[in-house]
């Protein structure tokens, strides 16, 4: 730290304290936090059409 030889000034400056980053910043930077099981309710998967046809054919035959 750069030395401040005036302890009175240093002490006075420290009276101005501000809060840390709010949780809303986490969401803005990292995206909304999702619970692992939310995929079961809202998730989706992509399946290639040939795979769907093959599976359907096996299922119905």
């Amino acid at each position, binding site marked *: 730290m750069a030395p401040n030889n005036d302890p009175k000034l240093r002490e*006075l400056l420290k009276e101005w304290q*501000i809060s*840390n*980053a709010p949780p809303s*910043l986490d969401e803005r*930077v*990292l995206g909304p936090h999702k619970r692992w099981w939310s995929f079961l309710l809202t998730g989706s998967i992509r399946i290639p059409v040939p795979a769907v046809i093959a599976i359907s054919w096996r299922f119905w035959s």
Partner: protein
Amino acid sequence: MTDPEFREAYHRHKDVLYRFAWRMTGSPDSAEDLVQDCFLLLLRNPPGYDAARGTLRSFLIGITRNLARKRMRGESRFDDLDEDSFAIPAIDTDSHDRARIIARAVAELPPLQREVLILAEYEELSLEEISRAVDAELAAVKSRLHRARENMRRMLMPALFQEKPGTKGIPSGTK
């Protein structure tokens, strides 16, 4: 930079960047925007960081500082001149809210002095780290910091000679 590395960097440095941006701009909303933009830049261009040239913290402070300058220039609140003859009158401290007085005094400083004062006094960075963050020679940083402290003493002179509320001595607000 992998996703876990990015998250680790974010959680480690978000608070120092946020406090720095808030104290530079005087606005928590602007601080939030600036820190978000800083990490978006890191995400898009991680090779921009070279560990051989300093810590990730000073690199990120440097990005935030440049973003803040850009924003303040847009609002005509940033003047690159680091005037020696910058004359700041004493601030009227006839108020019980000393934190607000100090915030006002910091905001009155020329930006180049303000940024080194914030990094030295509030974030406790070394002179070398400040020099990397603000992209200035060590001698220039020392000089700006000296002038910033002198200006703060001048502005806060009345408050310096008042006792902190709740302590023994002359009550706050008494002249």
